[in-house]
Structure formats: C-alpha cells, structure tokens
C-alpha cells in the first residue's frame, strides 16, 4: 500500500443483486487498486480487492494482441456477416451498455438473451402468467413481520440480504428489528442461512410445487391428505402452522431462490409461490420477490423489456422483436446449433452451460467483452478486456427490487468500458449495413438479409 490513498463514499458493490450502495472504498491511486471496502461482505471484499489493473492487451484477435479499432472492425464484420448472431450475457454491465447491445442486435437482426434465462428466467415466465405482488426492499425493512425464504441461501449468495434489508434492520414499524419478525427458511438442505431462521422447514428435493400447492389449499381452507408428509417431508402440522402465521401477519414476504427455478417444475414452482403470495392478500398484505443474482441482471431485464417489450430470449430476425423461451434462449440457440456467431458480454457460458452448448460455442466465431480472462474469452475470435463497472466506470445498475442506482467510479482503468466498445461497434455495424444497402432504400424491408 502506498501513501497515495483516497476515500470514495457511497460507492456501490455490483457483485450480487443486493447492489449495496453504502461502500466506503479506500483507493490506492499509485497501485491502482482498492485496499479497503468498508461495509462490504465477504463477496464484496473479494470483488473490490481482486479487480486490480492487470497488464494485458485491451483486445485480442485469434489469441494475438490487437488494437481496439481492429478488434471492433473484426467484431462488426462477424456480426454483420452472420445469419443468426446471438448476443448473450449483459447482467454484469451497466444499463448504458445493455442499451447499446440491444441496439446492435436490432440492427443485425440478431438474437439477444441475458443470464436471466439460466437464473430466474422461469420466474419471469411465471410472472407473465400470474403477476406478482411485490415491493422494494425498504418496505421489508420497515414493515415485514414475517419473512420466508424458499430455495435460497442468502448467507452465501447474498450475504447482506439479512443484515441490510430484511431481518436485522430496525424499520419504521419494526422498531426492534429481528425481534419483531419471524423468519422461516424452506430448503432441501440445512444451509449456512438456517441459523438466521426461527423456523427451518426441510423439504424433500424436487417437491417444492407439492408443498406450495398444499399451502395454497390450506390457505383457502381446503382439506389435504395426511400423506403430504410422505410426499414432501413436511407434516400437516408444520404446514398448518405456516399457514396460520402467513394469514395473521401484518406484512408478509416470500423471497425465493434458484432452488425453485433450476429444478423439476421450473416456472410452475415460481408460479405456485407467486400465486400463494397473491392468495394471501385476501387476508393480509403479502408480497414476494425472487432473490436475483448478478449485480445488474435486473437492469438487463428492464432494458430489454423497455426496448423490445420482452425481458429475455428475444429474436429480431424478422425486423421486429419476438419472444420465445426455449427457442430464442441461449442454451437452446447454442445446443441446437442455430447460432453462427456469438457476442458474449460479461458472462462465461463456457464454464457453466451444458456441454452441448459449449461444444457449439467452440465451432462458431465468438466475441467476448469481460474484465478478466474466462473459459469463454479463451475460445473467442475477438476478445475485449474492459474496465469494471462500479470500480472503473459509472453508469446505472438496478437492484433486485428494480431500484436504479448510479455507480461511482473509484479509479481509472486503462481499458475502455463496455458501453464505449459497444457504441463503437454499433457505429461500425451501421456503417457496414449502410454500405450494403441499395441506393434510395427507405425501409428495413429493403435491406438485403445479411449473408
């Protein structure tokens, strides 16, 4: 550590969907790194400590260092020449960059999808069917006397969820914080989140829907068979106790994690939970919220929705957006072999997608934008190294409850940010498309299909 230190207050951690904006960062301007992140959790401390400036080229083409301009030109050529280019990722970058990415997809008539599709995508589908009674996190802090977590482990995935927003804070109508609340955890294993809960309900794997449906039935006063315990691992007595608590609380919350979406039942599970929260409004005020993952995955949902009308899995091949999960979502466009080029922004599908999808990614030209080398960037034709949002660049990020927050830059990076690269790419793509257009064409329908 040098003596050249500076403090940045009210900075925001963009590692997880909590998007805590109370960071007090101590920046070492000589060493170009953050030496202390006060208020950060274990994940946040690692996020700030590890994003230092590494000595690396800002762009690579086919594994060799290249100028950013050349890389932009090559990336534009790939996108314009492809028949089915896919753009994917987007949840670890700013809304400003996301807006450019959708614009590029619109121009090249490509396919855009975000990490939502492999995270709470099913919850998004459930939302489209059921709706959602929901809230910003401050309402939980101020009002919630019953907080239920289902299929999630915030102690490890969102470490400050309990302490900053939902359990321990004192709020307007919850003057004693945790003492005023009952916390319930429903999961298949006793995770490090369990000690926070007053009640831990251990459920058999893959039986979320069954238990949620039983709860709905009991909320409506219907009889259910005693074999519910055999099916779900949860007794009728426990179910009835939960139902009683949910109906009589003043302000109840159901938070849910990927324990619902990544297992058998997917959107049916999320839908059952959302329906339960809706049903409970007949008796009291009740809300629900998926505990979203990456720093700006919620921003990606918002941007893609306002620009196209649909939250993820959007295809522009007809000159207007269409939405079809299972068809235009990235695991599918890759594993089916549809995509003939891919631009991956701030994501690493090569390390967490099914292997059939990864195999296809190896067969097609790939463009990546990321702050660090990943398995995906190591197989890319064009790889940009970009600066880190919330550390080297400002911009807008949406917290898991749709609250937008403006980032504060801590120190400069020699690498350009995602938005800058994408803007340059958009301009290059536009130039290439215009050069291919017949003279006097006015409508996109007169554009030749990219080939």
């Amino acid at each position, binding site marked *: 550590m040098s003596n050249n230190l500076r403090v940045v207050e009210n900075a925001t951690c963009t590692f997880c969907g909590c998007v805590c904006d*109370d960071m007090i960062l101590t920046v070492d301007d000589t060493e170009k790194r953050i030496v202390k992140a006060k208020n950060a959790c274990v994940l946040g401390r690692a996020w700030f400590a590890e994003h230092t400036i590494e000595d690396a080229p800002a762009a690579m083409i086919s594994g060799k260092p290249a100028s950013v301009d050349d890389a932009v030109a090559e990336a534009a050529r790939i996108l314009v020449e492809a028949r089915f280019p896919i753009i994917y990722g987007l949840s670890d970058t700013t809304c400003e960059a996301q807006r450019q990415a959708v614009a590029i997809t619109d121009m090249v008539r490509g396919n855009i999808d975000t990490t939502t599709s492999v995270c709470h995508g099913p919850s998004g589908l459930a939302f489209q069917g059921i*709706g959602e009674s929901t*809230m910003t996190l*401050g309402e939980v802090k101020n009002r919630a006397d019953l907080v239920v977590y289902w299929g999630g482990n915030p102690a490890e995935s969102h470490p400050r969820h309990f302490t900053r*927003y939902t359990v321990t804070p004192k709020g307007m109508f919850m003057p004693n914080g945790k003492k005023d609340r009952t916390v319930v955890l429903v999961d298949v294993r006793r995770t490090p989140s369990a000690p926070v809960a007053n009640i831990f309900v251990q459920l058999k794997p893959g039986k979320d829907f069954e238990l949620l449906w039983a709860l709905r039935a009991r909320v409506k006063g219907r009889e259910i068979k005693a074999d519910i315990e055999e099916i779900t691992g949860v007794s009728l007595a426990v179910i009835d106790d939960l139902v009683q608590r949910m109906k009589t609380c003043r302000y109840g919350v159901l938070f849910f994690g990927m324990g619902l979406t990544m297992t058998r039942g997917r959107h049916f599970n999320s839908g059952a939970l959302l329906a339960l929260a809706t049903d409970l409004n007949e008796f009291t005020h009740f809300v629900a919220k998926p505990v979203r993952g990456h720093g700006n995955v919620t921003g990606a949902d918002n941007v893609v*929705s306002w620009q196209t009308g649909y939250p993820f899995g959007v295809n522009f091949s007809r000159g*207007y*957006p269409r939405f079809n999960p299972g068809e235009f979502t990235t695991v599918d466009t890759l594993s089916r072999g549809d995509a003939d080029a891919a631009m991956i922004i701030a994501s690493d599908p090569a390390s967490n997608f099914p292997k059939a999808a990864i195999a296809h990614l190896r067969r097609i030209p790939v463009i990546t934008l990321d702050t660090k080398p990943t398995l995906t960037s190591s197989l890319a034709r064009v790889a940009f190294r970009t600066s880190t949002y919330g550390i080297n660049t400002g911009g807008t990020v949406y917290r898991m409850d*749709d609250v937008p927050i403006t980032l504060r830059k801590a120190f400069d990076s020699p690498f350009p940010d995602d938005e800058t690269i994408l803007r340059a790419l958009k301009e290059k793509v536009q130039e290439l498309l215009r050069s291919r257009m017949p003279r006097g064409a006015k409508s996109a329908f007169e554009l030749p299909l990219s080939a």
Partner: protein
Amino acid sequence: MSDTICIINGSVYDPANNIAGEIRTLYVRDGRMVDAVSEPARTLDAQGMVIMPGGVDIHCHIAGPKVNLARKLQPEDHRRDPHPGTIFTRSGSGGVVPSTFATGYRYATLGYTTAMEAAVTPIGARHTLEELHDTPIIDKGFYILLGNNIYLQQLLKEGRKEEFHHAVGWWINSTKSFTTKLVNPGGDEPWKGRRNSNVSDLDEKNEVFGITPREIISAFIDVADAYGFPHPPHVHCNNLGHSGNVRTTLETMKTAGDRRLHLAHIQFHSYSGEPGQNPGSAARDIIDYVNAHPNITCDVGQVMFGKSTIMTADAPLAYMLRGIKKAKWINADTECESGCGILPFSYQEKIYVHALQWAIGLELFLMSQDPWRVILSTDHPNGGSFQSYPKLIRLLMDREFRRQEIAKVNKRAIGKTVLPDLDREYNLNEIAIITRAGPARALGLTNKGHLGAGADADITVYDENPDRELMFSAPRYVIKSGNLIIDNHEFCADFSGRTLHIAPAYDESIVPSVRTFFESYYSIEFDNYAVDDSYLHEHEVIPLSRAAT
C-alpha cells in the same frame, strides 16, 4: 441542425392565436416558428390539408417502473402487434403498452409531439428518465408521486408547513420532474399497513399519520401556488371507480377554492349511486362545477372499448378490479413513497358499467363549455390506448358515427345518461384546443400548442378527410423541433426529443432533516438518491410563474 421549412397553402388551426382554418404560410427556422424565412431549404405544399400544432398529451403512462412491469407482464399483447424498424427508426413492440421506441414513433404517427408521464415514484425517476431517453421524437416530462410520501405526511402532521414547501421543492429537483402528482392521497398506509384497506372519505384521519386526504391535497395546492408551478397539483382523487364518488370529486375541487387544480381522468370520478351498488352518471354535476370554475382544468380519461391495461398508484383500486376475473395482477409497494397495481383489462360494449363509463366520458366532453379546460385523454392505457385517439376524435366530431356506436352498447347504461340527447359536434378548432392548445396552456408550456413566432416548431399536417378517424390516424407531415420526421406518411428521420422539467428553488436547510429520515427508513443511501443531470440529455427547464419565496 434543423432545416428551414416553409409550409404553404394549408388550412391552419392555431386557436391560441385565434386562427381557425385560415390559409396561412408557416415558416420554421432553428427549431422555432418564425415570421419569415428567405429561401427555405424545403417547401411543403399543404393544399387541401389541415395544419395544427403538434399534439400534447397531458396525462398518459408511457415510461418508468410500473409501465415496464406492465410491458413485461403481457408478451401475448405485444406479439400480435409488432412494430418493425426502418433504416431511420428502431423496431419495437406495440399493443396496449408499447415498447419505448414504438411509443415515441406511434405518438408521432398520430401527430402528437409532447406527452407527459403522469405518475412516477421518486425513487423510480432515474428509471423513468432512462426510458424517456429511449422514447423518440416526442418531448416529455413526468409528474412525481408525493401524495402518500411518508416524510411529507409527517411534516404535515407536525404542522411544519414551511419545511413541507421546501421539501417538495427538494423532491422535484432531485427527480427532475414537472409537477406533483397525488394519487388516492392518504390511501397507501391503510393498504400496506392495515391489511389492504383504504381511505374512503376526504376528511377521514389516517390512523398512523393523523391527517386527512383533504389536508394533503390542500397543502400541495398551497405549495404549487406559492412557487407558481407551470402546472398545479395533478390529482387522482380518492374513491376512483366507486359509485357515488361524485361527492369526493366535488369536495376535492372545492378544497382548491379559487386556486388552480388539475383533476386527472375525471370520467372515473363522475359516478352517482351508493358504494357497492351499480353507478349512475354524475357527469352533469361534475361538468357544471368545472364549467363554472376557471381555476379547474381536467382531462377526461375516456374509456374506449377493447383492450386496456390498468396501471395505477391506486393499489386498492387495482386489487378491487382484480377481484372481477382473478386473472394476473401486480402489486408493487415502493418504500416510503407509493403503492401500485397493474392488471390487463378490457372494456366491453355490453357490460353495464363499461358502457356507462364510455358514455359519461362523452357526456363530459359534449357538455363542456370551455374546451381549453376539458382535455382529451384516455388515461392511456387505463381507459384505452393513446392509439385510439383518432376514433375518440371521430366520436366527438361526427354525430352520426356517435349514434351508430351508441346503438351497439348496453342500453340500460345509456338510459342512465343524457348522451343520446347531446347533438353537439366538435369542430376542427375545438379539436385543436382539446388536443393541443388546451393541454399546452394547462401545463404552462408557452412554446407549445401554438404556431406563433417563437413557438417550438412542432407541427402536424393532416390530409383533410371527412372520416376524422382516418384523418387523425395518419398525418402526411410531422415536424418536430423544426425537423421533418414524417414525410408523405413515412418516417424520414429519427429524433430524440427533450425532457421538460421544473427547478423550484428551496432552502438547503431542509436537507439534513430529509437525510435523517432517509437514513432510518429508506434502503438506499441518501447521497445516491437524487438524479444527476447526466440523465436529462436534451432538456428544458420550464420557468415558474413567480419567484420562489
């Protein structure tokens, strides 16, 4: 750089300058109307055409958190109404809640060049500005929801009127908004904190804060008056949609005395009858009061048959409507600031209440004596889409068409109204008032809604056509800020439009008190709350009519 343009031979309707259908030559330079241009870059021959200022929508829901939730909720509605791009314009999705790009282009396609988003939570202002930046062509602004703001209610309860004034100023500056919006004032706390109940009387004291809706409304009228806001508080009264709410609506207007007040979507507040029973029409009582009180402006909130989307900060209302079909429904609580309810909806000719609502809206229009103050709106998308404005204009202008439409709807509902007896037909000048000049004046936008020298060069040129729906559906030319955007019915350019907002001065000494409240009850840091200028892009600060106190 915008063009110099000259428009010749057109029949000009510019009510603010007392021009009603005269053939005039119009000149445009540097985005403004001017008295003359030598050697214009472009001359448009508007022979056989009608020229009006660009339309101004005083009340719609087009951007921000609740609109985006409603968009995400309805993929099925987007799918049947795609919006293809052109080489000049982005693609998008239509339907009742279009994507941002489609919203801007479709407003332009109706000849509208300004639209005001009518309900934004302060914490959602940043989101709203981002969406508005992606809403092309039109100028836009938004109203900030303060009628259920807990901090402000605490100040009122404690009688701290002076601090209340400055806190409102702080909030408007922190959000870059255009005016204050009150929705079901006092109703949030019973909804969120008292098992989904509501407030039902203007003089009912809130259990928690000990103040009444009337006190809230009155305090906001005082603030707007003292500051000289270009547009007064924009009020969505209590008891929206409930039988007998005419009493609440009249009392709300009386609360203003002779001070300025805007009542939003007044049709939804013009019902006789008893709570829980079927409503009747109280259009006569409401419009008589409005006609006699020049301090009141309102927009009608006309219901149009077909698909709509209920989206409102009035969460108890949305929950009540959800009870009808028990289909998909959103409730969204915003900490310390607001509630919100959203559901897809559809108005049907044969349903008594829907037909009555449709007829009451038309009654209000047809019995209005001052078109400057009774403004065209559908409370988009609550009463129907803004895309149905051309049909609404035809209903007002074409008595025969109106008769045909009346014949299609629930007869019992029509029997409760005087609609069949109303023979009035709006003329083009009156249409120019209720869609342009009137809303611009009610908003205090002195450069909009007219075509005099110095005005913003926002111009629409329609082909004269006896089918007024067709005529107002497809202008031949649209000029925005001096730029030709639609040329011979087709987009020939894109344009980003400006954000319109106000910047009332406030005493900085209010800030520590707001900060203390934030640190206790909000979940984001106070220093990260205010929206900075980078979100404004192109913008214009609309001046106040008097100096700050």
